[in-house]
């Protein structure tokens, strides 16, 4: 009973905190916290040549899974479909889709070209108004069919919500194996939905906290490969690694600047740690904080004018914002407990964080001025949020307690709804979401 009341109170709290954004034609409001998902019919992609068994079906399932996973769409079970589409050029019998309560219909047809190229033509129909909302053609190599499906899902999402999509993205993370007292940690990357996981390092060196560059071509991360923990950059194309500047002590907590030309990170200096900015073109470094405290976890605002970071200068970890040159430091977190791992939303509106209070670890968001704090998930240990490129969804990791416990990655809407486990081959932590890829 008590949890029920708490649930209702949370819903009311969320509703009170609504901010309205302009809506698209079919009235999906991303901020509504998923109360009424939009019914959409996604038949198997028409494949007249049928060169690759089930490809048409598989593409349609990935699109449906993406859209359902957003919590904003309800893909209707294909068994309910009354009309069998035979060609993309054939106009659907809208009545047969209205009967099964579909409000939108995604029809698509694929054909095969030389050199393993596939072409897909698709149309998104407003079943009620009986008109096409999107008509598009895409081509790609056959083995990139999942990416193709994600691009289509992003287009549908954008057309119907007015928000940018986030399905054609990757997530860098740390793949964990071995006992808790001697975890093997490797740099890894996967599609946003957990498919195509790929290990990037051998596990000989302890690695932590990978973060994507804005063009999603590089990762900046922490490695113990030369003994001392230092910040490195890994290029996903060349698979080459290099150290970011030579510093006398430990460098850690790195992130790229929004233009990708600088790295911001912490340098340990005796008992304290301070924040530095490193220019990647000339390796010039600039000091941004200069106190004997622990100043770390810096993250730029998307306009690069401000930096949010955490400091224990007040006695506990709290969040502060400073100008990009280090001036004008102001504290923004004032709730009970301590605050850590701030990350600025790519939209600029929110800052996501880890909050520690009464022995519990929570993920929350607040506005950039510190107002409107809202806890999204609360438990034994939740840590390290990362933003989807549209600033509407977060991933974070959740660690279960005890000797056999470990970390798993979850995604959740910023409304707190629609929490999902991202399935990984083993334990996984420190997720970092890429920008849109295509």
């Amino acid at each position, binding site marked *: 009973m008590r949890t029920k009341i708490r649930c209702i109170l949370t819903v009311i709290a969320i509703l009170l905190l609504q901010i309205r954004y302009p809506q698209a034609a079919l009235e999906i409001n991303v901020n509504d916290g998923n109360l009424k998902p939009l019914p959409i019919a996604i038949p198997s992609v028409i494949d007249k040549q049928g060169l690759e068994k089930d490809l048409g079906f598989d593409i349609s399932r990935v699109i449906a899974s993406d859209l359902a996973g957003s919590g904003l769409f309800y893909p209707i079970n294909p068994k309910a479909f009354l009309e069998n589409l035979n060609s993309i050029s054939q106009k659907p019998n809208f009545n047969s889709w209205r009967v099964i309560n579909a409000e939108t219909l995604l029809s698509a047809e694929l054909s095969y070209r030389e050199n393993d190229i596939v072409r897909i033509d698709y149309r998104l129909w407003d079943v009620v108004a009986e008109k096409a909302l999107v008509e598009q053609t895409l081509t790609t190599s056959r083995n990139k069919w999942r990416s193709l499906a994600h691009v289509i899902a992003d287009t549908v999402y954008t057309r119907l919500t007015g928000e940018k999509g986030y399905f054609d993205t990757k997530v860098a993370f740390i793949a964990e194996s071995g*006992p*808790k*007292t*001697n*975890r093997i*940690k490797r740099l890894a990357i996967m599609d946003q939905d957990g498919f195509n996981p790929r290990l990037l390092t051998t596990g000989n060196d*302890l690695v*932590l*906290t990978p973060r994507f560059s804005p063009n999603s071509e590089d990762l900046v991360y*922490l490695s113990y490969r030369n*003994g*001392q*923990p230092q910040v490195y950059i890994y290029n996903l194309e060349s698979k080459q690694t290099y150290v970011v500047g030579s510093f006398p*002590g*430990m460098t*850690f*907590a790195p992130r790229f600047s929004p233009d990708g030309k600088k790295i911001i990170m*912490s340098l*340990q200096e*005796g*008992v*304290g*740690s301070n924040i530095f900015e490193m220019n990647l073109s000339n390796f010039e470094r600039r000091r941004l904080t200069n106190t004997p405290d*622990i100043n*770390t*976890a810096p993250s730029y605002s998307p306009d690069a004018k401000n930096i949010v970071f*955490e400091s*224990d200068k007040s006695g*506990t*970890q709290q969040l502060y914002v400073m100008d990009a040159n280090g001036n004008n430091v102001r504290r923004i977190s004032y709730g009970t407990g301590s605050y*850590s*791992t701030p990350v600025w939303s790519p939209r600029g509106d929110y800052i996501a964080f*880890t909050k*520690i209070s009464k*022995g519990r670890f929570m993920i929350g968001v607040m506005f950039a001025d510190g107002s409107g704090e809202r806890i999204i998930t609360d438990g*034994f*240990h939740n*840590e*390290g949020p990362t933003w989807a490129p549209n600033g509407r969804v977060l991933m974070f990791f959740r*660690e279960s*307690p*005890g*000797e056999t*416990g470990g970390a798993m990655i979850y995604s959740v809407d910023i409304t707190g709804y629609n929490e999902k486990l991202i399935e990984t081959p083993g334990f996984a932590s*420190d997720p970092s979401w890429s920008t849109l890829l295509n």
Partner: protein
Amino acid sequence: MIYKKALNLSVTFLLIFILTGCASRQKIEQVLFGGGNDNEADIVSNAIPGSSQDFTVNVGDRVFFATNSTSLDDDAMAILERQASWLELYPEIDIIVEGHADERGTREYNLALSAKRAEVAVSYLESLGIGSERIETISYGKERPVAACSSEACWSQNRRAVSVVIADN
């Protein structure tokens, strides 16, 4: 009035906390330094003087910290004093001081916190006359716990600075 009550309550908790903290530390010392167990007494007598085993078993290679703290308590200072005496006895031996944190913190903060723990231990060793050129530090944050359970019994063992002897034979 309410404030007073809250204060009383927090003082009580603090006391309980300190007391339980002390209890677990005693346990650890028993484990580390013998405490009447025959096998451990054997190790003590078998350790080659000047070896890392000698250092670990007969001197004590680690000091412990309270939650989120980087302060050395009396026990920690006593162990570091023994480490300093031993290092004076074997001037050819260098050490690395590893800083560690328990799992109850965020990753990057814990790296900085455990670096601070290592630095605090090193500063004390240096104040006792050990040359800074003989000591390196490395920070592991919460990445290398020695005890895997998720309760204070393990966390108190993981909040530590460990002096590791280099050049051992």
